[in-house]
């Protein structure tokens, strides 16, 4: 079972996106950034490669090899950084001036890439035929409406058909108040977990059970706020957009405020928190991060190694993750507006990286692929998933427009004339109601994410029954 990830392996990723100051030095794998290297095609053609046991390929110039470590100057795009890998984590070392073992045989189908720099799709060249495949799904829009179980499941089914090696989910849900983009991490949004928990198994259990080939599931997070904050924890790896945020589920203490007895309110909060913590645990992350996101009263600090302490900082190098939010600790309006508050946790790139939640920061897909070590050699698969998500968005909007029109049409049906005419009119009314039912069945989860349209379907069912009675009485 995956366990909580420490901050140590994240050092390289940090260097690549320029958040070095916060991340270094980090233990045995400390590194320093070198000057930005000029792109050098000749040099890149002879780069050394480390094939790691987790499937990643690291390219650069090996500086020194010992029995247990490899020191390498890693080159990614225009950046280079020196870092260290444990020999135990390395499957194979391919020196730039040597062909890979697998490619050395004459006549081998893969010989084309032997000793060559893998061809970069990003650079406009074709990737090798056995390059890892990448599939991208965009989850954008309103959580619970645009990002809801049915389209996500359909999008994933489309992805499954392509059997990608890497499935990258770009998560960027709409978040804001009346002015749309002002961050507000204090909305009463925890119950959107009830929607998230219907989506989570699509990425976890359904992949485990149904996918012939299990991809490496990567979440690239720009906005995971409110209910969407519970989704990234399903990922094997999380990368943050430079503006990325995960949070907006506090504060739990405000939930049910003023309703009933305190002890029952506490019960309701406790069970919700327990359920949400489970999502993080199942993904191999520290459940206390969910507590910090949800409870204003929760106090925690962390150090540069990603360790969390359930207290305020006591030692040099420790930072506040969340304070108790009381009195002078209460976030100011300015902190709320700038998103720098710490009454509840909103994970941002730097903190996410230090806590081991994120493996790096990526402003575009290429940077995600760089982090994954496949930028130079991958196949980006064009699947239907994003069309499915777009279609859902459009169809929900159409359904929302259509239902009032159908209702108007229903009311405009005149029931008069002969028995036959009246029966026909009533039958028409039934067909309109059935069409409305169908729309609720198909898109009800977007109209009412908590009930999936069931109440309206049943109400319409009763109306149909009443009309059936009218028809029966007409004929009797």
């Amino acid at each position, binding site marked *: 079972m995956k366990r909580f990830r420490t901050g140590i392996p994240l050092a390289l990723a940090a260097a690549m996106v320029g958040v070095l100051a916060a991340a270094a030095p980090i233990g045995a794998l400390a590194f320093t950034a070198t000057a930005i290297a000029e792109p050098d095609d000749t040099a890149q053609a002879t780069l050394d490669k480390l094939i790691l046991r987790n499937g990643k390929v690291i390219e650069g110039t090996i500086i020194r090899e010992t029995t247990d470590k490899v020191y390498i100057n890693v080159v990614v795009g225009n950046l280079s950084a020196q870092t260290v890998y444990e020999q135990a984590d390395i499957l194979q070392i391919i020196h730039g001036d040597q062909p890979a073992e697998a490619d050395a045989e004459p006549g081998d189908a893969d010989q084309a890439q032997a000793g060559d720099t893998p061809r970069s799709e990003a650079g406009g060249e074709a990737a090798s035929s056995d390059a890892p495949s990448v599939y991208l799904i965009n989850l954008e829009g309103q959580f619970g409406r645009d990002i809801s179980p049915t389209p996500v499941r359909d999008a994933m089914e489309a992805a499954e058909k392509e059997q990608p090696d890497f499935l990258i989910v770009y998560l960027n849900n709409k978040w804001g108040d009346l002015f749309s983009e002002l961050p507000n991490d204090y909305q009463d949004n925890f119950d959107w977990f009830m929607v998230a928990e219907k989506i989570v198994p699509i990425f976890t259990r359904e992949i485990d059970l149904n996918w012939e080939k299990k991809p490496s599931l990567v979440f690239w997070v720009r906005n995971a706020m409110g209910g969407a904050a519970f989704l990234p924890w399903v990922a094997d790896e999380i990368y943050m957009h430079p503006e990325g945020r995960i949070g907006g589920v506090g504060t739990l203490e405000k939930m049910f405020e003023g*309703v009933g007895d305190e002890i029952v309110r*506490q*019960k309701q909060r406790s069970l919700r928190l327990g359920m949400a913590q489970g999502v993080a*645990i199942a993904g191999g992350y520290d459940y206390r991060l969910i507590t910090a996101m949800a409870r204003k009263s929760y106090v925690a600090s962390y150090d540069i190694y990603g360790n969390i302490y359930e207290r305020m900082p006591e030692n040099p190098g420790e930072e506040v993750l969340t304070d108790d939010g009381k009195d002078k600790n209460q976030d100011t309006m300015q902190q709320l507006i700038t998103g720098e508050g710490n009454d509840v946790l909103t994970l941002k790139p730097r903190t996410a990286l230090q806590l081991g939640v994120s493996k790096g920061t990526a402003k575009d897909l290429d940077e995600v692929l760089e982090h994954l070590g496949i930028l130079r050699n991958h196949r980006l698969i064009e699947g239907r998933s994003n069309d499915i998500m777009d279609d859902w968005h459009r169809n929900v909007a159409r359904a929302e427009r259509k239902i009032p029109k159908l209702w108007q049409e229903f009311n405009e049906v005149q029931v008069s004339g002969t028995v036959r005419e009246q029966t026909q009119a009533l039958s028409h009314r039934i067909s309109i109601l059935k069409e409305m039912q169908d729309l609720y069945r198909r898109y009800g989860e977007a109209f009412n994410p908590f009930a999936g349209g069931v109440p309206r379907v049943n109400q319409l069912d009763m109306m149909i029954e009443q009309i059936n009675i009218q028809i029966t009485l007409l004929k009797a």
Partner: protein
Amino acid sequence: MRTLNQKLAVLMTMLAACLAAPFAAAKDVVVLDDGRRVTGDIVREIEGNVWMLVYFGDIKKQEFFSAASVKEIIRDAVADVAEQKEAPDKDVSKPGTLRGEVITLEGMVGVEFASKHLESLIPQLEKDIGEGGILVLKVNSGGGALLEIKPLSDTIENELKPRFEVVGWIESAISAAAMTSMTMERLYFLPEGNFGACTGWYGQLTAVKGRGLEETKELMRMITARGKRDYRIMEAMQGNPDKDTPLSATVDPDGTVHWYSDEDSGKVLVNPAGEILTFNSVQAEKLRFSEGIARNLDELAQEMGYDEVEWVGKWQSDLIFPVGRAEAENRRWRDFVSQDNQKLELAVAKYQLYLGTARSVQGKARGIMVNKARGFLRDIRRFYSESPNSILFTLNLTPDDFELWYEQQDEILRDLMRP
């Protein structure tokens, strides 16, 4: 007529027979750390943990003793050749032959998660996995009716435990579902598992207080004892409107856990004052509340100490366990009584609609309406037969009241048909 003395003599004889029975059938004695000596048949031993069949008259029950609690094992303490010949049908010492089945307990406690139905699965379970087989009760429920907790606990304790090796596999056990699951000595969690939040409430988040609270607490003292757990854990999960119920704990190096009803005595603060306890899978394992975390049946078997278990049933693409015949029936039934699709509510509403219409029309039309109403009334009865408590939550009628109500409705329909 027999005299009182004769009756007493008969009773004494029966009692003596009951007391003698365990010794006649027994071979082994487990001496526990607390001084107790338990006599019965050891059916399985793994790393010092002992599973033993103990006898109470005709009732046979499987008990589990953790390695930490066992001081000594005396084998064949009461040798009985005749009994040895009547060894259990199943050779449970051969792990390869051990069969197991998962039964899911989901939905609302008292409606979809109900004792009467669970008990009805026993004959099929006996066919599926045999005596001594592993019965995994996989719990995923947000709670429900307090009134169903004791019947469920009784079923697990008195009907399932004596027949099967019962373990809980917790996906989500909240409130009444957690209180019920406390009956099981051995609980395993899915990684996402959660367990607790047992505060009784009604209406607009109003806490159960006074006599109702005390009765629930007493019930849970009994159930936690059945599960061999410390009541203070349940107290922190239940809470108390009149006082905080903090909980702390210390785990000794040998795995023994000491629980304290305050924040400071234990090394680990489990539940701060003013809060209600819900365990997640990590906390539960760390504090030995659970036996471990298992994301699938292989891991579960491994956590239980078995190399191999034959899990009966057919695998489905959407489930992490195979569906045996008992579970298939369980799922069929649950789908029927499920509150999610509101079938009962619809049947009640339609019955009332047709009844109302029948009252307002005459002649042939009335006959048609009454017939329709009668159809829906029969549907309501079917729901009642399958799940008596569902009527309580929909029509606010107890089972006894329902019989009267049904009779009354039937009469109304008959009266409407009179000329």
